[in-house]
């Protein structure tokens, strides 16, 4: 999955009229949107796919509303959430929480989460590649340490130590920066 920095440069190129970059961007965003709606509309793949299409069209026709000062992912998930809430309202289905509350509160929540994710990606990008991959497998994807160790050709102990050091460095970097700040 493409990270925030890559998405941002593709987005800016797309806004400048670069068709190739824009196509790559839409393809990457489609995967994110599929994951987003897939999680929230479990077992309703047709509906999820409709929403993916609707969101792609919306973010295309309204691409002028992207503010280069904010993360592309925050903007995209803002659109995705709006379309999801609109979908619930249309189909009259309510899940988890009343939609009136969701409309006002959840948008802000999502953007916080996206900013946190953005910070995390930035922090990860600063780590050495090997550490980053280990950290991602163990902590983000939840792969068992034994499996990661086998794949990397390391002992379990060495993986644990590398992950621990990586986390410490990541924490040090994140503490040095306010949430959501540009690097």
């Amino acid at each position, binding site marked *: 999955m493409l990270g925030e920095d890559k998405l941002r440069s593709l987005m800016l190129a797309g806004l400048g009229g670069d068709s190739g970059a*824009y196509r790559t961007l839409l393809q990457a965003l489609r995967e994110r949107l599929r994951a987003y709606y897939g999680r929230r509309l479990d077992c309703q793949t047709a509906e999820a*796919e409709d929403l993916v299409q609707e969101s792609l069209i*919306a973010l295309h026709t309204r691409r002028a*509303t992207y503010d280069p000062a904010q993360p592309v992912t925050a903007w995209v*998930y803002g659109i995705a959430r709006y379309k999801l809430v609109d979908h619930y309202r249309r189909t009259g289905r309510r899940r988890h929480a009343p939609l009136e509350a969701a409309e006002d509160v959840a*948008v802000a929540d999502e953007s916080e989460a996206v900013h946190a994710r953005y910070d995390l990606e930035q922090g990860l990008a600063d780590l050495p590649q090997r550490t980053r991959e280990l950290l991602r497998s163990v902590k983000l994807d939840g792969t068992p340490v034994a499996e990661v160790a086998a794949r990397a050709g390391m002992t379990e102990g060495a993986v644990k130590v590398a992950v621990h050091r990586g986390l410490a460095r990541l924490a040090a970097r994140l503490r040095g920066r306010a949430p959501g700040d540009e690097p």
Partner: protein
Amino acid sequence: MTDDLILRLSRDLKPVSRLTVLRRLALGVGLGAAVSAALTGAILGFRTDMAAAAGELMFWVKLAYTLGLAGVALWAVEQLARPAGRGARRALVIAAPVIAVAALALWQFAHTPPPLRPHLVLGDSSALCPWCILTASLPPLIGLVWALRGLAPTRLRLTGLMIGLAAGGAGAAAYALHCPEPTAPFLAIWYSLGIGLAGLLGATLGPRVLRW
């Protein structure tokens, strides 16, 4: 199947200016305000003492207050028109011009002899003023709804409130070209009431007319 869609959307891609949002909002409110000013002149007539009025401080305070409210509201809308924008915090700044004019009104009220106070507050047109302002706010409100329908607001009620207040401020500025009332309490109460009504109208309509 989305491959087709993506190909279609990325073909013949036109460059998009960073100023699109601002330009759309300015166009919507500007055309609307021009219509309001023209209608004010045609129906109510501009102030006959305009040359003298231009030398009065209150004439400029009225314009500054109404256009200031419109400016702050539009500044918030500029972010509210974007998904995950930071418009809510900006919307709170709307309190600043209101507090400033309220303070000016209180000061003027306190420095006016009690027998003159009712006229200071009520003027000659207080019963009409808020309704005229609400009417004058309709053209800019229509312009702003048009502008927002091409953008992407996600908090429709708050966005509706803010475009209502912006349209109210613009409409009130147009109405001020007719209205000769020269006092701060009149401005603080009756102008604010008219602009507030426009905001209420926007908040009521927002969730229905701003959906996308």
